[in-house]
């Protein structure tokens, strides 16, 4: 252990020369690995669901968050190194998602990260998955602090005041279902298939967003908490009492999407106004929704609020965003020991 610590200190003296981080993300369904230079430049960014990963590196198709990560982790890490034309000896630190997520899944990534950290004598940095989402935008552009960050995905829906690369204040989250979960469940209920967000968005283009007035759950005036369980139940109630045909289903999709988008847009704008900031960053799988992007840009413009969205492939779960977060944590001297564990719940900024 003494030997390990010495290497650690020696390394820190010249850490900023190139600073390449190997980042690993296994908190949900996909196994991800990426190489990120100086917390900004993507040298490679692989997720196990990509076809090329299976073809070239022999990974397996993920069925769901599971021990399947174990079969994918080494092919995906190897692939990320090959694509970046780097060897493990050229890596300066390992960043890995420590939580929140399924402990069994997280441990696969953490164990791989520890093994690399130990054998190569390089630092290990545990990252909060939500922090990764909030910082994903920096892979493409520099957003001045402070800004309001909204993470909206299948597993999370939350608002943060982001005052620096490692300074987050939690403002509010969902009380029941996440926004992406509502999309997915409604899509499945309407028999539209998977992924729910995409199929509803596509069908919504053929429907009238004002056809049905589904409830918007604002909870209380100015509340920054969310609730999407009610709108889901309202769709079920509507279908039961109307037995809609194809046009009717398109109207439901459009009206449902509008109800969810309304709440997301209004709450992120309320948050910006309350905290006097003029920038909002939306990330997570739901941030790919074009109606959300369009509405937030439009509504924000009139109020002097600029909206930023990472590209869709950086909105969904990926390791590159974990690399950004790991870089900034490491720069501030935060690193973890080989006794680091996985956290199923890990509230950020509260």
């Amino acid at each position: 252990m003494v030997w390990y610590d010495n290497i650690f200190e020696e390394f820190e003296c010249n850490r900023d020369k190139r600073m390449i981080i190997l980042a690993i993300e296994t908190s949900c369904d996909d196994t991800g690995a990426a190489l990120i230079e100086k917390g900004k430049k993507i040298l490679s960014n692989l997720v196990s669901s990509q076809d090329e990963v299976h073809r070239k590196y022999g990974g397996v198709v993920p069925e769901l968050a599971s021990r399947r990560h174990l079969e994918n982790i080494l092919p995906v890490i190897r692939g990320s190194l090959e694509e970046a034309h780097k060897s493990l000896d050229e890596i300066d630190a390992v960043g890995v998602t420590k939580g929140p997520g399924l402990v069994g899944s997280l441990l696969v990534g953490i164990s791989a990260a520890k093994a690399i950290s130990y054998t190569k004598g390089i630092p290990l940095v545990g990252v909060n998955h939500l922090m990764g989402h909030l910082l994903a935008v920096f892979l493409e552009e520099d957003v001045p602090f402070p800004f309001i960050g909204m993470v909206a995905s299948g597993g999370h829906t939350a608002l943060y005041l982001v005052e620096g690369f490692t300074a987050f204040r939690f403002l509010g989250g969902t009380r029941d279902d996440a926004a992406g979960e509502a999309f997915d469940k409604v899509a499945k209920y309407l028999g539209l298939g998977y992924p729910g967000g995409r199929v509803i968005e596509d069908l919504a283009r053929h429907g009238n967003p004002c056809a049905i007035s589904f409830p918007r759950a604002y909870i209380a005036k100015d509340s920054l908490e969310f609730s999407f369980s009610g709108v889901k139940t309202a769709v079920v109630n509507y279908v039961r009492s109307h037995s809609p045909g194809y046009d009717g289903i398109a109207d439901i999709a459009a009206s449902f999407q509008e109800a969810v988008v309304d709440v997301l847009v209004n709450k992120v704008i309320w948050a910006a106004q309350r905290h006097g900031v003029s920038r909002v960053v939306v990330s997570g799988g739901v941030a790919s929704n074009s109606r959300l992007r369009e509405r937030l840009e439009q509504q924000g413009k009139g109020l002097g609020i600029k909206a930023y969205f990472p590209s869709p492939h950086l909105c969904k779960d990926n390791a590159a965003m974990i690399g950004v977060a790991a870089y900034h944590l490491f720069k501030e001297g935060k690193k973890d020991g080989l006794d680091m564990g996985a956290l199923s719940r890990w509230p950020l900024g509260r």
Partner: protein
Amino acid sequence: MATKKTLEIISPTPEQTEKIGTLLGEMLTGGEVIALAGELGSGKTTLVKGIAQGMGFKEQEVVSPSFTLINEYDGPLPLFHIDFYRLEGEKDPFEIGFEEYISAEGVVVIEWADRVPQAVPKDSLWITLRYLEAERREIVMRAQADRYEKIIEELKKKLYNRNSSQKT
């Protein structure tokens, strides 16, 4: 196996469903497995929110585990909130490490348990929620072991006392 003791309740509102959950949660002592069945919007998560409150957790803490698969809530009596919604086959529950929670010292609540009923331990409390109309739900509890028969007995008493005290 012969069906053991059952309890049927009509809940007129989500608030009432949550209260029934709270009464149930107050009676749990650890090691229980509660399996929930019922379609979308039938009130499963609402009932779990109630159970969690009965166990001493805050209502806002409990969120849907559909995507995260398992939510762990740490307290004097831990609550493991599991969701089979995205699971397919018999082996899936084991791939997410489900069996480790079953043997843990805490309360296990499984939403969408009917998607993989083979994975649910035989001695558990099954609760089926059924949509009646807009807010109205039928809740049927089935005890699959002696310990749950006692819980159902006690719950019946509590519900009856509450109703009669409300009238007076």
